[in-house]
């Protein structure tokens, strides 16, 4: 539902078949592991069996002797990085950590940490040879709990890490090493005064377990280090340019000697931005003289990529008796994993973002533990804090007997609200999503039956702007070939094509989009951060406008008049005396009027998104004897600005919701005392199947973002934020148990039920 008068679009808002659809339903689409190159050989990795150990020696001699083995590499083959910090597109990365994560140096810091790699004539030989690499370890105590890791006397993972407090002077070099890598503080107003004003204060502590993005396609990279020094990488990635930069930095080669060809990607959700395989495959290729393909196993993906952190959080909210929030305090510790870099900063900035909070204080800690180095997972950090805060809000509503939707409307952040982390919100749609739920048939319906309950929750994500480039060529038959660099995870090449089509006044089918390699298009930041439809869309719109102005020149030439006399209108160039040439007609005349018309567009990263909100409503039934929760009905309202392709917007919402349901009810990394993940398969790391969930109803709310020509807001990430909290609130409504941990899996829920 639109909240302002929506312009009448011709293409935007329709549901064309996606341009890459036929290849995907016939099995023709080429994903990373599908590529075959002449002379290609296969690689396998040796991974640490220990969660924390010093590497005393690595002996590859037995493995090298195996017939069919072509090359072996260890960290000795990767150049030294020192403590360089490099801006890699979506954040700064410490290169010492990145290289050690790719192939371990002095220490292994998690079970599954890669130590060496073998390339051989086939995968079976490579895997057999890996078993023949002898490594001497000195075992160390694994640290698996974030609060344990923060203690002053905790075993240290990285000797060179000192706490970096945001904005503080760097720690003295002779200060003690620590596992607390980063520290953040945000303040607004006067917390003590705000709490003093409150008639009711609620506070709780929460724990969430490590959770994985769960993309069905494992990481892969096929690399050829050519005799001319050019390195080509075919891979599954969310960002070819970021992958190129990381690979070039890790290998210490000029950036232009690396070309990344993005294959179709089988899911990412933030987990396919960091590189793991390309540098290893590149070195194997250099040593063996062959292209080398590396594909992770599912176990490798769980153990050795970048799950989202487990956390411990302490939250407090103060409210007046008539339901006005006065103050909030949050203490948030995230498990960064082996190396620093969890999204705890973002979590701190999201925690109170749904509300207009006069006084607040947030403190966040990024803590190293012996688990794989965490990475982004769809609105990273926001789901954790939403679970905590929305639970407290629900508690407030229960105690003050206020309707949860009314409470959120009363306290909602709106345009002009100042965030606790500082900036002021511009045009946002928090209120509108709450209203959508409040007025929904679901919320108004009654819920009958034993052990059944209903909960609502809201969530927020910033969404990114960043930089994209496209170019677009007009073909003689009136179609446009659109070249872009945003890897397409969810159908974005269609939504970009639609924005170009709308601007030019042609149909979506008349645009032919391609996602190309790093040599074929201008710099484009990652597909992530819900930025592609917004930012690459802006680039495509600019390219369309560039084409328009060139077409005006051509028409003026044909009609022998000054270009100021002609204008572009409704897909045609129109002259002063009623002359008109449609886009298609002009396209046929381009070669006769000067040659190619190529439109160019970039989005510069100065234009930012205002942020997106979702409010969800869920009905559950709890089996009090098993602790099992059944999702009966789910409705998700989300502000998407303007839905370019409603089917794919709905799809993003539904997909995020179901990931959130998995996070809420079952998914967790189950570690034993030695730091081994005991459930590293899809059998035991159980993500929702289609039998576990009902239809997911979506309500598309449209509060256009003023910074995008068509009002787009990113839709991809925010839908994962509300589900765990909404479900927790529904469980409480059903059986009176308030959960303070994720997942709320049957054993954990049952334990709480039995306590009552």
């Amino acid at each position: 539902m639109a909240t302002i008068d929506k312009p009448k679009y011709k293409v935007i808002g329709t549901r064309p078949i996606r341009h890459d659809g036929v290849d995907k339903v016939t099995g023709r689409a080429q994903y990373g592991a599908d590529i075959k190159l002449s002379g290609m050989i296969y690689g396998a990795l040796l991974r640490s069996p220990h969660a924390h150990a010093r590497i005393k020696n690595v002996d590859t001699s037995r493995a090298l002797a195996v017939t069919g083995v072509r090359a072996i590499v260890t960290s000795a083959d990767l150049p030294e990085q020192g403590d360089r910090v490099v801006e890699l597109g979506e954040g700064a990365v410490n290169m010492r950590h990145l290289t050690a994560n790719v192939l371990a140096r002095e220490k292994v810091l998690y079970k599954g940490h890669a130590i060496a790699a073998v390339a051989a004539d086939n995968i079976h030989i490579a895997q057999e040879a890996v078993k023949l690499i002898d490594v001497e370890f000195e075992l160390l105590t694994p640290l698996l709990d974030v609060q344990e890791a923060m203690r002053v006397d905790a075993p240290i993972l990285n000797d060179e890490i000192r706490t970096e407090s945001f904005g503080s002077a760097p720690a003295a070099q002779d200060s003690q090493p620590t596992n607390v890598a980063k520290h953040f503080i945000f303040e607004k107003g006067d917390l003590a005064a705000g709490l003093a004003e409150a008639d009711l204060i609620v506070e709780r502590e929460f724990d969430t377990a490590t959770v994985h993005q769960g993309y069905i396609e494992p990481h892969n990279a096929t690399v050829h280090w050519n005799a001319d020094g050019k390195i080509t990488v075919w891979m599954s990635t969310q960002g070819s340019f970021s992958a190129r930069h990381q690979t070039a930095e890790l290998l210490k080669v000029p950036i232009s000697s690396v070309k990344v060809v993005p294959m179709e990607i089988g899911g990412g959700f933030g987990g396919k931005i960091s590189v793991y395989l390309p540098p290893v495959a590149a070195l194997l290729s250099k040593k063996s003289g062959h292209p080398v393909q590396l594909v992770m196993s599912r176990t490798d993906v769980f153990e050795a990529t970048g799950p989202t952190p487990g956390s411990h959080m302490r939250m407090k909210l103060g409210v007046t008796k008539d339901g006005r929030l006065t103050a909030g305090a949050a203490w948030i510790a995230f498990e960064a994993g082996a190396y620093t870099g969890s999204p705890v900063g973002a979590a701190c900035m999201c925690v109170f973002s749904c509300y207009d909070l006069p006084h607040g204080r947030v403190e966040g800690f990024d803590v190293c533990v012996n688990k794989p180095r965490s990475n982004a997972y769809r609105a990273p950090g926001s789901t954790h804090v939403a679970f905590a805060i929305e639970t407290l809000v629900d508690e407030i509503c229960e105690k003050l007997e206020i309707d949860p939707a009314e409470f959120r409307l009363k306290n909602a952040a709106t345009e002009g609200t100042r965030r606790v982390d500082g900036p002021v919100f511009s045009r946002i749609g928090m209120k509108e999503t709450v209203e959508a739920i409040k007025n929904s048939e679901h919320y108004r319906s009654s819920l009958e039956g034993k052990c059944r309950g209903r909960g609502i929750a809201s969530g927020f994500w910033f969404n990114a702007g960043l930089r994209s480039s496209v170019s677009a060529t007009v073909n003689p038959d009136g179609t446009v070939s659109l070249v872009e660099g945003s890897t397409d995870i969810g159908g974005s090449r269609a939504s970009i094509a639609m924005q170009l089509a709308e601007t030019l006044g042609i149909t979506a089918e008349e645009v032919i989009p391609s996602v190309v390699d790093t040599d074929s298009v201008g710099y484009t930041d990652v597909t992530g951060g819900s930025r592609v439809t917004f930012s690459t869309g802006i680039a495509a719109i600019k390219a369309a406008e560039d084409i328009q102005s060139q077409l005006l020149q051509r028409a003026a030439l044909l009609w022998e008049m000054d270009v100021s006399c002609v204008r572009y209108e409704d897909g045609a160039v129109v002259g002063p005396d009623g002359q008109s040439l449609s886009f298609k007609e002009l396209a046929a005349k381009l070669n006769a009027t000067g040659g190619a018309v190529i439109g160019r567009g970039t989005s510069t990263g100065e234009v930012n998104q205002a942020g997106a909100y979702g409010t969800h409503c869920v009905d559950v039934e709890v089996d009090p004897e098993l602790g099992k929760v059944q999702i009966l009905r789910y409705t998700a309202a989300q502000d998407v600005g303007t839905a370019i392709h409603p089917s794919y917007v709905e799809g993003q919402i539904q997909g995020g919701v179901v990931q959130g349901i998995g996070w809420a009810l079952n998914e967790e990394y189950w570690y034993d005392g030695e730091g081994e993940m005991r459930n590293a398969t899809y059998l035991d790391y159980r993500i929702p199947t289609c039998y576990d969930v009902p239809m997911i109803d979506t309500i598309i709310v449209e509060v256009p973002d003023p910074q995008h020509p068509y009002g787009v807001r990113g839709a991809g990430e925010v839908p994962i934020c509300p589900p765990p909290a909404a479900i927790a609130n529904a469980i409480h409504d059903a059986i009176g148990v308030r959960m303070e941990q994720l997942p709320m899996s049957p054993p954990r829920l049952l334990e709480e039920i039995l306590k009552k």
Partner: protein
Amino acid sequence: MSGKRIVSVSINGNPTEFLCEPRQTLLEVLRNTLNMTGTKEGCSNGNCGACTVVVDGRPVVSCLVLAVEVEGAEIHTIEGVTCGVEMDEVQSAFLEGAALQCGICTPGFIVQAEALLAQNPAPTEDDIRFYLAGNLCRCTGYDKIVRAVQAAAKKRQSVS
């Protein structure tokens, strides 16, 4: 070369012979020996369904079938679903209903859905969800996939 076996099968209606080691799975042979990469590998231990093919009328996870086991069998893969350049009802329904996002699970779902409709031309929503529960999708939340199978079933019923 010692130890390799010759296996004769029919794949998508075409008689085929291939050479394989006893330790190779059907999935590996399809993808690496026969270059039929439409069938995908997601987990290699039978839990995600991305590698689903039909062997003698029965959908199986090809990562858990040894290639030597299918001697003499009739195998159907995603490559055999399309009739020439026409999409069939299931494929069209997936496209029209936007029932895919990244698409990696799509071949497995389509093969499994075809097997379902062959066995049960008018499945309920519960039937569909139960039958497809062995195919994991992380992108769509399943809603549009289930609706696509419903739409395909309806279309096929109305034609026949």
